[in-house]
């Protein structure tokens, strides 16, 4: 896949996740749009995972701690061939496995997540096991900024540094908003970089919508040997649809038919500029 194709893929995945949120009349729209570029780079440039042999013990692990942005994950997995995209027609329907949070019933999903502040601890365990067994695969999690208020994250951060887990990569989808408002008003998470560095992590900040920057940050090994890596991806909630960007109601807003059409027009227009 060329760089241009990867950029077009981000547009395609945005359209895809909006389509299924629109059909399901439910979903975490803003956060899925803020994290989709990260997922695109992970699954198309970074992670060694095989849709045909997902259970390969040497695969890279990706555990989505911010499970509510499942539409971004499902769209990326569906596009990568982990399951037929048409399965997503059943999103959030009675008895569908494609529910509002990641579940292991779906090929490609590592863990059932949804409760916040869980992913990092599980990744610490996975990364520890890989070190014990001398395995080279890497372990990634995607966290939200709102979930940093969960104390369990800081327990896990402490442990990751204590055991020098430089095979562990946490990516922060730093869109600076959560359901009630801006992080700084709800529960100030800043300065995130200083906090993680104080906990013994190596930290790099990137533009979370710049695919090249993301790829460079995620594909060049640990930021510092002997330390877990935090990639702070500065993002925009609702990115890619003008009327959704930074507008709080789109945290889990569902577009009307008119809004859905407008979003698609904007995204099609954006594709022509790539």
């Amino acid at each position, binding site marked *: 896949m060329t760089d241009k194709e990867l950029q077009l893929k981000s547009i395609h995945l945005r359209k895809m996740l909006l389509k299924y949120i629109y059909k399901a009349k439910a979903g975490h729209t803003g956060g899925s749009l803020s994290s989709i570029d990260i997922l695109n780079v992970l699954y198309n440039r970074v992670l060694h995972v095989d849709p045909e042999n997902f259970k390969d013990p040497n695969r890279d692990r990706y555990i989505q701690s911010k499970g509510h942005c499942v539409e971004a994950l499902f769209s990326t997995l569906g596009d990568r061939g982990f399951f037929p995209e048409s399965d997503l027609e059943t999103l959030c329907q009675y008895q569908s496995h494609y529910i509002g949070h990641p579940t292991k019933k779906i090929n490609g999903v590592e*863990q*059932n997540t949804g*409760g916040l502040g*869980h992913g990092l601890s599980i990744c*610490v*365990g996975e990364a520890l096991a890989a070190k*014990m067994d001398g395995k080279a695969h890497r372990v990634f999690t995607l966290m939200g900024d709102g979930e940093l208020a969960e104390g*369990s994250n800081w327990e*896990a951060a402490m442990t990751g540094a204590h055991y020098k887990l430089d095979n562990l990569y946490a990516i922060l989808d730093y869109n600076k908003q959560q359901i009630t408002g801006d992080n700084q008003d709800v529960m100030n998470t800043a300065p995130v970089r200083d906090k993680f560095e104080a906990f013994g992590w190596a930290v790099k900040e990137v533009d979370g919508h710049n695919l090249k920057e993301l790829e460079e940050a995620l594909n060049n090994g640990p930021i510092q040997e002997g330390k877990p890596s935090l990639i702070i991806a500065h993002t925009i909630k609702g990115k890619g649809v003008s009327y959704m960007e930074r507008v709080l109601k789109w945290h889990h807003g569902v577009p009307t038919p008119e809004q859905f059409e407008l979003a698609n027009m904007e995204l099609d227009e954006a594709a022509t500029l790539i």
Partner: protein
Amino acid sequence: MELDKIEEKELIMGKANLEVFSETMQDMAAHDRDIIAVTSDSRGSGKLVPFGQKYPEQIVEIGIAEQNLVGVAAGLASAGKKAFAVSPACFLSARALEQIKNDVAYSDNPVKLIGISAGVSYGALGTTHHSLHDYAVLRAINNMTIVAPADNFETEMAIRKAAELDKPVYIRFGKKAMPFLNPEDQSFEFGKGRVVRRGDDLAIIATGETVYPSWQAAKLLEDEYGIKTTVVSMHTIKPLDTDLLEELSANGRPIITVEEHMVNGGLGEACASYLLQNGKTNPFRIIAIPDEYTVTGSQVEIFNHYGISGQGIMKNAKELLKLEV
């Protein structure tokens, strides 16, 4: 001490189940490098200091952080390790409950949750350190096996079988020496109660460290009144051995349950629910810790206070059997 005499005469005293856990862990680790102990500054309380010295690569210290303890254990288990998350039962089953529910049970990561110093083992330390809720909360979580071994044999078997079980399991025990109950019966299977004494007049279904006082009550009843009692070590609280409940209830005899747990949601209520829903009308009584601020003292003092003793259980049995004193 009349009861101690019985113990000397009739039963061979063993070690604390906690010590058996420690020895079994060391023995398993010697043959299997995937056996991992995960501790929350609890290796001393868990008698795992020798384990850590012998197998430093097989112990993961998390510090005092039970949520992370269980989350990390889930990650280790997901990666194929036989992860034993060891922490005082009071903290493990409450502080880390969401991790148990989501990361262990729901995600089906076969973590072995080891609740040490369970029930009122930390008697005098008070309610913060008691675990009288663990059966109830864990019974309400799908995909969880709950085990309270009574004696050293059951403890060793439970730990060994848990290591091989590809499912989540919670095992809790205390730190007081326990006698061997019915050593002739060397069978052990999760979900199958062990009969440690047989008799047709009464059934006592107990679990964990209350099986011993139940056995003492049965002995007293036989010696003093000629009452023959079946005593069951219902080591697995979930899944419950309903076949055995059918067998015990068949002749209509009174049934008493005994547990080191609050009455709400424990073994007794699990048995009552099955019996009532299946038309069994045996006289029935639950002996457990009542829903009140638990009295403090040693484990045996708290047991005696709430009638979890040979004498206390006998008193309840006599009432159910309508025996004149």
